[in-house]
């Protein structure tokens, strides 16, 4: 049984929403959606379930991933989300500069203390 609970999915969802909002401020919604689409594609090469992530101009939702987790509790969602975040932040740093990315990371680290951010690729 996976240790990732619905609450943790909710935490990841909140985190992704914060990242989405913070990035949209600098990049605009169009670029942020393209960035999410790109990272979803890249992560889906390893974890197809990331394709269940819903995103549009209003933001991000993990509802379908949470539903999938109920059907398949073995889903490595923790690793999947970490890969998503790492790759997202790595590209974001190129777009808005390391300094601004650090600011976003710092703020998110304060709110989501248990999730380590790193813009370096694994």
């Amino acid at each position: 049984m996976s240790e990732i609970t619905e609450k943790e999915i909710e935490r990841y969802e909140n985190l992704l929403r914060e990242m989405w909002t913070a990035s949209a401020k600098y990049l605009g919604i169009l670029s942020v959606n393209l960035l999410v689409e790109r990272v979803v594609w890249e992560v889906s090469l390893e974890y197809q379930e990331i394709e269940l992530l819903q995103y549009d101009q209003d933001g991000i939702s993990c509802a379908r991933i949470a539903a999938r987790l109920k059907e398949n509790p073995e889903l490595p969602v923790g690793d999947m989300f970490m890969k998503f975040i790492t790759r997202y932040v790595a590209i974001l740093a190129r777009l808005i500069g390391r300094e601004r990315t650090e600011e976003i990371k710092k703020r998110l680290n304060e709110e989501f203390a248990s999730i380590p951010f790193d813009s370096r690729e694994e």
Partner: protein
Amino acid sequence: MPTNLLLSVSVKYWQEFQDTLAKVMDANIYIFDINGGSFSRFSLPVELCQEVNKGRELRNEKCISFYKSALASLEDKDIVTCPYGIKLCAYRLGSYAQKIGFLVVAPTRLRTQVGLEEENTFVSKANSIYQTINEVLKAILEKNLLGLRRLELNSIYEISRLMTSIVELDKVLDLITNSLIIIYKAELCVVGLREGDKIKVAQAKGEHAQPLIGREWPLVHPLMEQVFSKVEPSFLSLEELRPLPGFAGVEVTPGAEILIYPLWTALGAVGLLGIVAPVSMDDNGDKNLQIYANFAAVALSNATLIRRLEREAETDVLTGFFNKRALRNILANELERTVRYGTPLSVIFLDIDDFKAYNDAFGHLSGDVVLEKTAEIIRNSIRTVDIAGRYGGEEFVIILPGTNKEGAVRVAERIRKSIETFPFPHRRITASIGIASAQKDDSIDLLLARADQACYRAKKEGKNRFCLNLP
């Protein structure tokens, strides 16, 4: 294999597939990436390997160095013997255009005496394994490539929409650089716009992009001549680009090539697009990027043209100052700021004395010189944050944000004296000046009218002086 972005595949899932195949075929399978580094583990324990390194991973330096050197010199396929005497079948994976990695097939048991027939059976089994694995990997590569192409096409679609929906140059520049960095994970992306006989870097993104922004590259520079001598992109190394201003501090992955696309439209060269991408392009990738560059060229051309028209629509041709319409728009914004932040704001209304008589006596060309020189004097007498404009005929308006009436008086007197002492052709020129400071609930018309009234008073009191409009 993770080094090849397009062959990104879950190692866990791959290992399961590889282990099943190894079990069915009763052979040991091992896969290396294109640099000879290990990708997957041995599928089955090899007796001798177990003795050497406990089986499942290559920890023995001797083995690692053997594989590296054997695979580096591998053409297509070969039978090689490892340092511990095991005969292995080695294959290059992928196609000639897209190299993926290497496959090594080994027997499951160590046999000292192997007959020719047994060896042929093993080689034939290894060939079948190679065919299967190569086909699967090529299919994964193809699938991943299709995903990348879909991303490219989506972005091209967005850029094409831009041509009809977004006309702000800054937004177009951002969208072009952002989408290229996102799609290709580009290390660096540069857009240069043509300004006369040079290319000016209008936007650059990437880790070391900042020093490039605003740099100018003359079109007569040999590198620019090379880029604009054709419609296809030029592949240049960072070393070749070093002579261009701004590239001294730029760093990219060693050996990376920079693609520079000249941006052409029916009107000629618009600018250039430079990109450092880690993804090796195939023919389709090249074509997609070329289509992207073509759309980018048209979008940039439209946005540049609209920006120029907007600037021309708000600029006075003779003096280069803002015209009346632009001045009123700026004044509206400044008044709003004054209300919001409570900062002072003053306006100077300047009228050249007896300008009609000067024009009548010495002609309109001489009159134009007076207007040009007066504008120059005003420009040299104000701060960069102050805004000057030609309000009409021989009237100028100067907006002084954050300046109270005392500050405005100092500026007005400085301008008046400079005009009075400037050696204009034919005769001395003077100006009358009215000053008004913004009040609560002021409108553009009220503020300008008070400055105008003060100027009128200055005229009435003998010209060549300033008057304050006191509430």
